């Protein structure tokens, strides 16, 4: 990096134009992460409304129809607005630095992928103010609830899904092009950090299924406005067709939300165990296997819909197969920690909590995979508990772990460890108090998406709500930690963590605005 290169080393532009017009992967990564956090608070607010209404039996705070709008918008915003953009933000920040690339492969398109999102979610959220209210048919928007019986705002919901899908596809194309085309010399595929591998496979899943989501909402649009009968049996269609197409998207989608989390945890655990990741190759193959299996298990979401028995059996066994590669991963994380010199900084705490609690969510997933048992669990709070365990202490905890882990690299300062630990413990306690009782509620028969319930469910519901409020409020600590860390603190070194390995730790903290405009020394690239 001599003076001859100085003209390539412009800092960021001044003022708001830096953020509106940036092509820098770090700026765009930050935009994604802040946007995701804003959506996390918005979706979280909707969740608080739900938990407040469910605090005791009876209808006290909101109308049932508004309650349905809350569950719908909570799901949509958390899935498409909070979790997915957070991982894209991490990908933007970290992938170029991890593979020694100067930036993302297609920097202008990168900006476009981001800036579609705030507009898309503004449009989606504006439906709350429209006549007839926001979408109220659940985040899975099953027909005919979302077609024949939908509020008028469904049209805007459909178009919002279309454009956020376009954003996802462009973002994924960018990530794949970056990984396949921009690796520094010496960075072979099997030397890539696992986070890069998991994102490569996630991006592939996204490009494969987001167009299918676009297809299914397009069919809805035509059923609603142009008189087609895809989801109407009176014209020879089938509402179940909706579910098949939706879940063909939907199941890979849930892995889209968890594979990058696997990558994050696979980066953090070796650092704080001060050991290399156990079974790197098997991690790569396990990720690929999970991605493959994700395409052939979708109908396990529909066991009670009335499928031929052969279908029920096929989807049951295929689903159970997923436990094998997932088990490989959990085994490898535990084996990495085995006899390591472990320390328990905040990222590690979140990562360990991830391993334990995600595995619990995985086990309840196995229970749900058993077709005959699922007839009992289907559409109860047991399902809610299951997917919240894999998504909140799963995906969301990994995002928080990643934030604490790389925050010193992003800001140049160490975060407040005491506040970080407080955030972790309150979140950990909160999330379990919130979701664990929901298993019991579900097994006892409490249906999901209903604003009122029978009296025998009252105790577990108020416990769950208390946990919800605790978890919700503790997230503000994260905001405080991040703001404090951006403003200052103890200077971070380049390596930040004693056991950290990888190219991102060879550049100074904060990472310069442009990194690796010339490829790094191949000697810095080690086998994983």
């Amino acid at each position, binding site marked *: 990096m001599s003076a001859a290169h100085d003209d390539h080393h412009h800092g960021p532009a001044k003022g708001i134009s830096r953020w509106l017009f940036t092509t820098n992967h770090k700026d765009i990564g930050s935009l994604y992460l802040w946007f995701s956090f804003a959506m996390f608070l918005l979706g979280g607010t909707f969740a608080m409304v739900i938990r407040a209404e469910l605090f005791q039996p009876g209808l006290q705070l909101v109308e049932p129809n508004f309650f349905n709008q809350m569950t719908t918008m909570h799901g949509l915003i958390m899935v498409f607005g909070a979790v997915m953009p957070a991982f894209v933000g991490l990908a933007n920040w970290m992938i170029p630095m991890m593979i020694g690339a100067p930036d993302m492969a*297609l920097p202008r398109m990168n900006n476009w992928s981001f800036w579609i999102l705030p507009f898309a979610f503004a449009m989606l959220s504006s439906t709350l103010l429209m006549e007839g209210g926001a979408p109220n048919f659940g985040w899975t928007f099953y027909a005919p609830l979302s077609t024949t019986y939908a509020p008028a705002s469904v049209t805007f919901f459909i178009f919002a899904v279309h454009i956020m899908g376009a954003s996802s596809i462009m973002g994924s194309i960018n990530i794949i092009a970056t990984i396949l085309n921009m690796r520094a010399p010496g960075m072979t595929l099997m030397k890539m950090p696992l986070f890069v591998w998991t994102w490569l496979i996630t991006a592939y899943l996204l490009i494969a299924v987001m167009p299918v989501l676009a297809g299914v909402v397009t069919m809805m649009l035509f059923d609603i406005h*142009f008189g087609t009968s895809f989801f109407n*049996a009176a014209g*020879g*269609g089938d509402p179940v*067709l909706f579910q098949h197409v939706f879940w063909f998207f939907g199941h890979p989608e849930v892995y889209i939300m968890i594979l990058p989390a696997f990558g994050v945890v696979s980066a953090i655990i070796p650092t704080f165990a001060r050991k290399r990741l156990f079974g790197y190759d098997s991690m790569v193959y396990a990720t690929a296997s999970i991605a493959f299996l994700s395409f052939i298990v979708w109908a396990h979401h529909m066991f009670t819909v009335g499928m031929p028995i052969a279908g029920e059996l096929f989807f049951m066994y295929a689903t159970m197969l997923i436990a094998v590669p997932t088990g490989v991963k959990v085994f490898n994380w535990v084996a990495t920690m085995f006899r390591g010199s472990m320390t328990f900084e905040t990222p590690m705490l979140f990562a360990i909590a991830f391993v334990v609690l995600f595995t619990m969510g995985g086990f309840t997933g196995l229970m749900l995979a058993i077709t005959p048992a699922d007839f009992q669990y289907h559409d109860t709070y047991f399902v809610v508990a299951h997917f919240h365990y894999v998504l909140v202490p799963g995906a969301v905890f990994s995002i928080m772990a990643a934030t604490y882990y790389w925050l010193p690299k992003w800001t140049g300062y160490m975060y407040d460890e005491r506040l970080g630990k407080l955030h972790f413990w309150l979140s950990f306690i909160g999330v379990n108090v919130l979701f664990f009782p929901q298993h019991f509620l579900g097994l006892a028969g409490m249906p999901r998406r209903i604003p009122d319930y029978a009296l025998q469910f009252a105790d577990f519901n108020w416990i769950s709500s208390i946990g919800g409020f605790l978890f919700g409020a503790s997230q503000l600590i994260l905001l405080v930690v991040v703001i404090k860390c951006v403003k200052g603190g103890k200077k971070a070194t380049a390596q930040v963590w004693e056991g950290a390995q990888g190219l991102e730790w060879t550049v100074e903290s904060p990472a310069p605005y442009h990194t690796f*405009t010339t490829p790094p020394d191949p000697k810095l690239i080690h086998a994983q």
Partner: protein
Amino acid sequence: MASVGSHETYYVPEQTKLPFFASIGLVFTVYGLGGVLNDIKAAESATTSTWIALFGFGLLSFILFQWFSTVIRENHAGMNSDQLKRSYVWGMSWFIFSEVMFFAAFFGALYYVRNFAVPWLGGEGDKGITGQILWPEFVATWPVIENPSSAVFTNPEEALNVHEWSLAFFAKFLPFWNTIILITSSVTVHFAHTALKAENRKRLIQWLSVTVALGVVFLFLQVEEYIEAYEHYGLTLDSGIYGSTFFLLTGFHGFHVTLGTFILAVMLARAIKGHFKPNDHFGFEAASWYWHFVDVVWVGLFIFVYLV
């Protein structure tokens, strides 16, 4: 793995105003369109919504034009390294894959309807109980001419698929001619590509013009077929599942042919301007990939919508 040299020159533009305004154009387009659809459904005036959509679409088109111009200008200025060009190649390939998956959703729907939904409604197979309870008189056929409930969805009078295997039938069968036209156009665009690589600009322009013309003829015949479907066969979007799958599959394909023809026309204009070099013409190549893709989708359509 790229060579060390190409890494040093990867071009990262400092800033760009294009995508932010493209996003504004995009959101106005869809917000306006949504408004138009809802206004029509509520029998209200759609004037405001129409203007919003038009403004958005105008802005989006203008920005995209600027965007492509910028990229072309930069390429001519020699700012694009080989590595950057490979990024475009990856980008286009994966974009086409996403398009394949979009069509897969509709082909999948067609498969499900023909093999499961309609037979079950007709009382056949594993879930035939559906039909026995809902509409016992409904007889499963494909194409569905008598809808399960013809009170809700008006029956089409006739289907548009191949129902007679004779020369006389195919000679008057528009989709058959359209198949020939599209396959021919895939060949002509390949000839144009060969001419480009041989640095024969005159032949490039000739073959590309032929390709564009074939695209236009295809679209013309497609419109002709739609008019026939609506006026003579009573086959419309709202005439049940046969019309639904027929129009959405052929319609989205037709939309892609329109886009492809437009892209090839732009490439023709660029060829006339002398933009392409034998070793540097990815814009053209991407357009031709897109065209081949549209062609392959049509072959799938011809087989699954018209033949079987």
